[in-house]
């Protein structure tokens, strides 16, 4: 396969292409439209013939399948070695990976090896007057976006899910080329996988989800949130990750990338600041209401209705109103 300017690293799980890969391709295509850049999509692992054909069909891009016999699970050390070699061989300007448990694991180390800037959690693409790309990324819990300019010849990017929607189906599938590499890690072995604990079924079924975040202040205030949720028949109680980490709620209530990804008709975020990991877990909800004391909280950017008030005071007032 001939040299490409942008190396996109696709992700796969259980023999299927992960949808996030299509979002990486969208960013790559938008960058190609800004300047003249060619794209190559790389998949790494074993037994991926089907995945590669699927990727070639869905993206129209040529696929380079780096087959590593026995590499059944993601191994950061092997990924870094192979991607570094490929980036050098193609003399790429950019490596695009997902802002996922995999991408964030290897991207920074890879960047050091390539003497490249590493820009993580990219959620937007703009450009300077000279047509140089500027990458947007969130800071301070999502309250602000910074526009970052790379000053290195090669740049490694991790892409926040949900910001570069997959483009329409293409007519002409790309070509798949396969290279087999015998590659083992001296330092790092992946021994196996542990499946998720019982699925958060109540959250999956509910038409309305009332979720609590750190802004509720104390564990006792969860009762106020529970009473509030009880005003809506068929509602389920959710929570943001810090509450689960603190042991205030069980894991089955967790909404976010590392918990349940939900899409109810109505989502009410109570005292949730709106971290990207939480937003990615609820952003496809029908109607989003946020209640928070901080008017700048990032959750308000993804809300249809914003209520700036003391949470407990407001909920109690609402309950009184409804009861009378």
């Amino acid at each position, binding site marked *: 396969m001939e040299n490409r300017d942008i190396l996109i690293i696709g992700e796969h799980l259980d023999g299927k292409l992960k949808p996030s890969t299509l979002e990486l391709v969208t960013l790559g295509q938008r960058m190609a439209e800004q300047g003249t850049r060619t794209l190559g999509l790389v998949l790494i692992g074993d037994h991926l013939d089907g995945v590669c054909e699927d990727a070639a069909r869905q993206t129209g891009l040529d696929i380079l399948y780096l087959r590593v016999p026995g590499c059944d*699970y993601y191994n*950061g050390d092997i990924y870094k070695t192979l991607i570094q070699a490929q980036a050098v061989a193609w003399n790429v300007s950019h490596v695009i990976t997902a802002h996922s*448990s995999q991408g*964030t*694991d290897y991207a*920074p*180390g890879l*960047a*050091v090896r390539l003497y*490249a*800037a*590493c820009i993580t*959690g990219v959620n937007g693409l703009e450009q300077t007057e000279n047509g140089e790309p500027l990458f947007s990324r*969130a*800071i*301070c*819990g*999502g309250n*602000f976006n*910074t*526009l*970052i*300019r790379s000053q*290195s010849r090669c740049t490694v990017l991790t892409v926040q899910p949900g910001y570069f929607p997959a483009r329409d189906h293409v007519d002409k599938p790309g070509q798949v080329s396969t290279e087999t590499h015998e590659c083992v*890690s*001296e*330092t*790092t*072995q992946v021994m*196996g*996988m*542990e499946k*998720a604990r019982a699925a958060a079924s109540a959250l999956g079924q509910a*038409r309305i989800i009332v979720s609590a975040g750190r802004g509720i202040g104390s564990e006792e205030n969860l009762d106020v949130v529970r009473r509030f949720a009880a*005003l809506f*028949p068929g509602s389920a109680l959710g929570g943001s990750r*810090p509450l689960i*980490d*603190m042991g205030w709620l069980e*894991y089955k209530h967790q909404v976010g*990338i*590392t918990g*349940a990804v939900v899409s109810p*008709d*109505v989502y009410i975020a109570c005292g949730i600041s709106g971290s990207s990991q939480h937003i990615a877990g609820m952003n496809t909800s029908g*109607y989003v209401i946020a209640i928070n004391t*901080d008017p*700048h909280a990032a959750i*308000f*950017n*993804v*809300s*249809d*209705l914003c*209520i*700036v008030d003391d949470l407990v005071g407001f909920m109690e*007032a*609402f309950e009184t*109103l*409804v009861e009378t």
Partner: protein
Amino acid sequence: MNILVCIKQVPQSESATVINADKTWIVRGGHVEYKMNRFDEYALEEALLIKERLPDVRVDVITFGPERCRDVLKRAFGMGADDGVHILSHDNRYNDPGTLAVQLGREAAKGSYDLILTGIMSEDMMQAQTGQMLAENLGWPCVSSVIGLDLKEKRAHVKRELEGGMKSLVRVTLPCVLTIQAGINIPRYPTLSKILKANRKEVKTVPDTQIDPLQSCEVIQYPAKQRAGVVLQGSREDKARELARILNQKNIMR
């Protein structure tokens, strides 16, 4: 066994933070309270648990930042850390994580560490890069997003958190860097006696080094609203009434 934990001081809250006049950086308004980055608390606690479990374990901490960051080392001493290094920085703007990782690497190489722990990311800059880059600078392996850790036969046996509640089980040789995810433990509070001792403890301060960054922050902006974002106005009762009306319309009230 020697363990180094990288810790960062971050603001308690960003609610009074705004964008500066020329839109190049943020300004933290009013009296700002600082704390230890939440993810670093988990990393430090994990190191202290190892120290309690195994004989002859030493736990050092290192931080990078302006004068005020000394407080975060004191807090770490209060929790039980042995010694601390402060890389004193002058510029407090957007740091390329790469330049930070080089400086941490230089200090880390001076000690004979078997294990370095960091939080998975900082709450303010949210880069999730420093630990992985530090490992690369030292030529060590690195595993990120660790929510379970056991040390056996010169290896770390770790559980990594993946998406949707899945986990992978990874075995990695020492020395290594692990970035710690929230929920691995319940961080302890500093004890009064340790805080008093901490106040008498010497912090080793080293100057930062100017390293050309590979990336720069050009502009800072408020994120675009992705939805209508209608803000309810009026008294608390007005807002409650309006919410009830909207929810009734959607036919979800009891």
